[in-house]
C-alpha cells in the first residue's frame, strides 16, 4: 500500500517535471520574437525559500512577459542542485557563502556589471564591504569577498570591483535570536541565553550546518567559553570545542527540536514548543501575523548576517541570457525590493524600493521609526498597529552591528562531519 502511494507521487512529479522540461525546451527552440511579452521565455529559478514568492513570478510575467518557475529548496539542497545539476536551473537564487562553495565548480557564469542599470545604487556591502566609509568589515564570508572575478571567465575571486560579478546582490539581512516575550517575561540581551538552563527543553537551533555553526559560535563567544580567531574560519580545535559545548547541552535536554525549513521554525515558535531559537526575519513576521507576540531580539554581541543574490547558469545564452539580465535589472528596479522589505529584508539597491513603499512603510522598515498606521506584511495581512517600532531599529543600526557573515570555512568538511555527529548524538 505504501509502495503504491509512493510510486504514484513520484510518477506524478515525474510527469510534472517532464512537462516543465518540455515547455522550457519548447521556449528555448521556438522563442523567436524579440518582445518578451510575445515570446514564451521561461526561466527556472532555484533558490532558498526566502525569496521564492509566487507574487514575484506573477509580477515578472506582468511587467516583462517572462514566465518564472520558482523552486524553493532548503540551503543544502540548493547547493547540491547548483553543484550537480547544472542544466536543471537558469537562475540560481543563492546566498554568498553558497556562492563561495559552488562558484569554483563552474556552473554559473560571471555577469557584466555594465549591463546592470542600477549597479551604482547597490550598497557598499557588496562592493567594497563597507556599509559606510567608516564601518569595519565583519568576520565570515563577507559578500564582497566573493562578489567579483577577473573577467568573464574568471575562476578565482577578486578583492576589488572588476566589472564582472559572480552574482548580482538582491537581498540581505541581519539575523539574531527570536524570542516569545510573553513566555519569557524578562529582557534578553545576549546570545548566551540560548543555552541558559532556564530555557531547558524550550530552545531550538537550525539544522543547517553552515549557518548553525555561526549561531553556535556567537553563543559560545558570548558565554566567554571560546575566543575565536575568526568565527567565519575556525580551526579544528575551535570546531571541536564549539560542537562539544552544544552536544553537552543537547544531551542535557536543552533543545526541544532542531528545524531545517522556515515553516518548521514558525510552527515551533507559534505553538509555544520553543521560546528562544535561531530564526529568520520572515518567520518572525509570520508568527506575528497570527497575533502571537514574537521579537527579533537585538543582542549586544551583534548580528549574524547574510546576503543573497541571483546568479546565471553557465548554459544560458542568446535570448534566455538577455531575458535573465532583463529579469535581474527588473529585480533591482524597486518593486521586488519593496515587496521583500515588507518581509523584513533589505534590498541591495535599497533606494529604488522607496518609491514602491508608502512613506510610513519606509520609515518603519528602513528608518526604524514608529509606525503611524497599520503595517501589513507582503500579502496584505495586518502585522503591526500604529506606534510599533521595528526590532533593532534602523537600517544603519542593524546592518552596522554585524558581528559575522554566514561563511564557508577552510575546514568545512571537518565541520560538516562534526555537525553530523552533533545531530546524531
Amino acid at each position, binding site marked *: 500500500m505504501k509502495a503504491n502511494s509512493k510510486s504514484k507521487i513520484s510518477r506524478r512529479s515525474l510527469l510534472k517535471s517532464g512537462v516543465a522540461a518540455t515547455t522550457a525546451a519548447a521556449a528555448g527552440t521556438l522563442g523567436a520574437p524579440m518582445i518578451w511579452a510575445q515570446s514564451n521565455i521561461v526561466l527556472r529559478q532555484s533558490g532558498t525559500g526566502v525569496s521564492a514568492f509566487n507574487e514575484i513570478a506573477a509580477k515578472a510575467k506582468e511587467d516583462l512577459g517572462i514566465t518564472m518557475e520558482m523552486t524553493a529548496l532548503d540551503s543544502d539542497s540548493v547547493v547540491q542542485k547548483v553543484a550537480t545539476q547544472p542544466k536543471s536551473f537558469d537562475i540560481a537564487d543563492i546566498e554568498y557563502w553558497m556562492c563561495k562553495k559552488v562558484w569554483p565548480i563552474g556552473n554559473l557564469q560571471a555577469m557584466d556589471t555594465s549591463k546592470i542599470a542600477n549597479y551604482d545604487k547597490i550598497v557598499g556591502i557588496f562592493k567594497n564591504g563597507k556599509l559606510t566609509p567608516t564601518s569595519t568589515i565583519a568576520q565570515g564570508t563577507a559578500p564582497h569577498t566573493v562578489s567579483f572575478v577577473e573577467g568573464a571567465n574568471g575562476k578565482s575571486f577578486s578583492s576589488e570591483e572588476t566589472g564582472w560579478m559572480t552574482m548580482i546582490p538582491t537581498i540581505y539581512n541581519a539575523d539574531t535570536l527570536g524570542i516569545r516575550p510573553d513566555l519569557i517575561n524578562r529582557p534578553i540581551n545576549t546570545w548566551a541565553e540560548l543555552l541558559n538552563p532556564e530555557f531547558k527543553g524550550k530552545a531550538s537551533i537550525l539544522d543547517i550546518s553552515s549557518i548553525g555553526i555561526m549561531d553556535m559560535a556567537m553563543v559560545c563567544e558570548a558565554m566567554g567559553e571560546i575566543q575565536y580567531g575568526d568565527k567565519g574560519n575556525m580551526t579544528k580545535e575551535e570546531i571541536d570545542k564549539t560542537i562539544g559545548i552544544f552536544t553537552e547541552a543537547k544531551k542535557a535536554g536543552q533543545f526541544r527540536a532542531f528545524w531545517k525549513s522556515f515553516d518548521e521554525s514558525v510552527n515551533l515558535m507559534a505553538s509555544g*514548543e520553543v521560546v528562544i531559537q535561531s530564526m529568520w526575519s520572515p518567520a518572525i513576521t509570520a508568527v506575528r501575523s497570527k497575533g502571537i507576540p514574537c521579537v527579533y531580539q537585538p543582542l549586544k554581541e551583534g548580528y549574524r548576517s547574510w546576503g543573497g543574490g541571483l546568479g546565471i547558469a553557465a548554459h544560458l545564452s542568446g535570448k534566455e541570457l538577455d531575458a535573465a539580465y532583463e529579469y535581474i535589472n527588473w529585480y533591482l528596479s524597486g518593486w521586488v525590493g519593496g515587496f521583500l522589505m515588507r518581509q523584513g529584508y533589505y534590498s541591495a539597491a535599497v533606494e529604488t524600493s522607496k518609491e514602491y513603499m508608502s512613506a510610513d512603510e519606509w520609515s518603519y522598515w528602513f528608518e526604524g521609526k514608529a509606525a503611524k498606521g497599520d503595517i501589513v506584511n507582503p500579502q496584505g495581512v495586518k502585522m503591526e498597529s500604529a506606534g510599533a517600532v521595528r526590532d533593532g531599529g534602523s537600517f544603519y543600526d542593524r546592518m552596522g552591528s554585524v558581528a559575522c557573515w554566514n561563511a564557508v570555512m577552510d575546514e568545512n568538511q571537518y565541520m560538516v562531519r562534526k555537525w553530523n555527529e552533533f545531530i546524531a548524538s
Partner: protein
Amino acid sequence: MAVLQKNISSILLASPVILVLSAFIIVPIILITAVSFWGSTEFSIYPAFLFDNYEFLLTSDVTYRVFFRTLYFAVLVWAITLVLGFTVAYYLAFFVHSLTWQIICFLLCTIPFWTSNIIRMISWIPFLGRNGLANQSLIEMGIVDEPVEWLLYSEFSVCLAFVHLYTLFMVVPIFNTMMRIDKSLIEAARDAGASSTQILVNVIIPLCKPGIMIGSIFVVALVMGDFITVRFMSGSQIANMGRLISNDISLLQYPSACATAVVLLATVVIMISIMLRFVDIRKEL
C-alpha cells in the same frame, strides 16, 4: 527437444521479471556498492577504490550508537505491532462471524491509509505538543499539573508514529493466514478438551507463523530504512541510519552515504534471512 523447448519457454516467461529485477534492484545495488568505495571532495566524487568511507563509518562511536538506536526501534516497534496486529486480526477472524462485517471492519482498518503517510504522521504533532489536545485534556482532567513534555519530540512519539503507520502491515498477512485456518481443526481441539489458551498457543499461533513472519519482515524493513518519521517526530533530536544517509546526501557526500547504505542493507538482509530460518514461507503458503 521438447524438454529444451519447455526450458526456453520458461526462461522467456521469466525474463520480464528478471529484466525488471535487474534493472531496478540488482544494478542499483551494484552501483551503490561500487560508489561506496569512491572518494569525494566537497562537491565532487571521483572513482577510486578506497576504504576511507568504511573506515570513517566503522571507527566512529556515533555510528554504533546510531546503529543500535535503529535496531532498538526496529525491535520495539516490531514487538508492539505484533501484539496489536495479532489481536486485531484474531478479533476480525474469530469474533466477527459474518463475512460482510469482516470486510467492513477490515476496510475500516485501511481508511487511515487513504491519506499520505507523512500527513498521518505530522497530524500527531499538534495533538501531542506542549499546548496540544493531549496535554490540555490531561490538565483539565487533573491528571497532571504541568504539560507532559515527553509526549512529543521523544522516543515515545517516534514509536507511536511507527506503530500507527505500520500496524496494518502486520494485521493484513496475519488476518490472511487466520482466515485459511480450517475451523474444524479448532473444533477438534475443543472436542479433545483443549482450553482457549491452549487452542491459541498450540493451534492458531503455529498455523499463523507465515503471516506473522511476512508482517515482521515488512515492519522490520520499513522501520530500519525509515528516516523521515524519525526526523519529524523527534524534532531532529534522534538519529537512525536513514538519517545518517540523508544527511550525507544533502551534503553531497554520496560515497559515504553509499557505504552507510551498504552496511544497512547487509544488516537488514541478515536479519531477514534469520527470520526466514524459522519459517519456510514458500512451503507454508
